[in-house]
């Protein structure tokens, strides 16, 4: 008897209430296959995709410290999401659209039957784990701005707090049933606001609060291994199909449309960045091409499910040019050290993408969307601007407060000699290469 009671208690502790295995009638196997693949693809974007993209750009002495940040976030946020993150983001709405309740803490009630509020043809846990991967990559994007100088312990504290206090609420606003930007009608197909603006703006704040690297603009800080960066860029492009086309939450026409828009915008932005660079510098660089393709992927993210291929091409081409200027002129002029251009690419690209969604969206592509300015809809742009302003302001303020508190309590930056020695040795007692 006591044994049975114990096991019942454990059952209650360890298991979400409505977990039932097998395939309930409403689960569609093709949609589930696609969203599972997409979740895996978005994981691949963070580790090793983004980890490589970023780590190839730092100096050799920081290669592991940079990779470590992405990998550590994958682990930490995977746990955070299950314990409370998913509930704070997508749980039953509280405070009139501001935040999710704690009803789903520990995945209580998040089972294997579909939750039609979010996705009617895939298990609820499938939606949950797909969304988890977005929560993982968003703080990882920020790491580009404070690369090569942040204390690992402080980084961890910052990331957990940031995800909980900044990412989770913004995700709720935009994507949760009852979220206020969602109800306002602002469109964000796959995370332009939630992922790129929030991380990009926070990255700028972080770069300013933490300060420039020693030797910035005096010493050479050339990428130590562009082949690593290019492997990362390739994996990012590949994974982004999961990010954007997966956001259709099924293997349907909408997913195909988003897939095509994603590919087209990436290609167009890579070419426009390269073209501008060719004109400006006399030669196109491969880091430029890679930066351009990421800028295109960022910009098309909010728009992917609402625009046709030609719109995606124009939107992407503009993204390449805009981000080139932000990285090549704005940053050197204002002299902040956004080391790997997390703001320059994700922040600026994300804002352009959110605006462009307001211009290029077409209800003919996706009846669940709306018509943008170029297709006769005048209301959308305004909503998009509200979404941009709200998420940027909220991210900036909270990131600033968080960093200032952490700095006061435990310090944000490694000691001067540790920065010279590099993060690999000073934070992790390892060397990237022993050749």
């Amino acid at each position, binding site marked *: 008897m006591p044994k049975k009671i114990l096991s019942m208690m454990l059952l209650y502790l360890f298991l979400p209430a409505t977990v039932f295995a097998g395939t309930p009638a409403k689960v569609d196997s093709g949609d589930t296959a696609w969203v599972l693949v997409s979740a895996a693809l978005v994981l691949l974007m963070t580790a090793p995709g983004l980890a490589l993209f970023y780590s190839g*750009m730092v100096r050799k002495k920081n290669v592991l410290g940079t990779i470590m940040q992405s990998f550590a976030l994958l682990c930490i946020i995977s746990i955070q999401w299950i314990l409370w993150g998913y509930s704070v983001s997508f749980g039953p709405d509280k405070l009139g659209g501001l935040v999710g309740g704690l009803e789903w803490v520990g995945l209580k009630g998040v089972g294997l039957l579909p939750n039609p509020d979010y996705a009617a043809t895939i298990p609820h846990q499938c939606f949950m784990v797909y969304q988890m991967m977005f929560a993982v990559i968003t703080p990882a994007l920020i790491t580009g701005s404070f690369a090569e100088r942040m204390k690992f312990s402080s980084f961890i504290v910052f990331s957990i707090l940031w995800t909980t206090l900044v990412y989770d609420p913004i995700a709720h606003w935009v994507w949760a049933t009852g979220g206020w930007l969602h109800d306002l009608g602002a469109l964000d197909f796959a995370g332009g606001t939630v992922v790129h603006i929030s991380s990009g703006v926070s990255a700028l704040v972080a770069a300013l609060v933490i300060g420039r690297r020693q030797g910035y603009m005096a010493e*050479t*800080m*050339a*990428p130590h291994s562009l082949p690593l960066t290019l492997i990362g860029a390739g994996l990012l492009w590949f994974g982004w199909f999961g990010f954007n086309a997966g956001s259709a939450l099924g293997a349907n026409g909408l997913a195909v449309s988003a897939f095509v828009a994603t590919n087209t915008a990436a290609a167009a932005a890579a070419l426009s960045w390269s073209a501008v*660079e060719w004109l400006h*510098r006399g*030669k196109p*660089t491969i*880091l*430029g091409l890679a*930066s351009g393709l990421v800028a295109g992927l960022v910009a098309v993210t909010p728009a992917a499910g609402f625009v046709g291929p030609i719109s995606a091409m124009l939107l992407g081409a503009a993204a390449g040019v805009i981000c080139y200027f932000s*990285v*090549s*002129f704005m*940053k*050197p002029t204002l002299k902040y050290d956004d080391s790997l*251009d997390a703001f320059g690419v994700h922040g600026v690209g994300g804002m352009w993408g959110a605006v462009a969604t307001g211009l290029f969206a077409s209800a003919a592509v996706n009846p669940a969307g709306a018509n943008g300015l170029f297709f006769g809809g005048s209301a959308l742009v305004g909503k998009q601007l509200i979404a941009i302003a709200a998420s940027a302001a909220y991210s900036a303020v909270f990131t600033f407060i968080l960093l200032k508190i952490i700095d006061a309590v435990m310090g944000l930056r490694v000691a001067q000699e540790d920065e010279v020695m590099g993060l690999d040795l000073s934070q992790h007692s390892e060397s990237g290469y022993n050749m």
Partner: protein
Amino acid sequence: MKKIEAIIKPFKLDDVKKALNEINIEGMTITEVKGFGRQKGHSEFYRGAEYTVDFLPKIKIEVVTTEEMALKVVDAIMAAAKTGKIGDGKIFVSAVEDTVRIRTGERGKEAL
């Protein structure tokens, strides 16, 4: 004994090695080095940043040989390493007091 140190352009290494073998020099040690001199470097671009690279890849060849051979070695390297363009490099000659072959303990000329 003399030590001849030559800084040459990397792609000339094969030619120099052949030239040295032809005059029966059968031992040498090479090191990858970077040289700064009159030869102009180049610019590299990485996103917003432009870096000037003025340390260029060179190969350093070290040959220790007898006084008699030293001049021949210098001439052989000079002939083989020359392109006539700036940056062809330098040859430095200095004295070596003793040489030992680790395997046998032989010293002096025997050890070369």
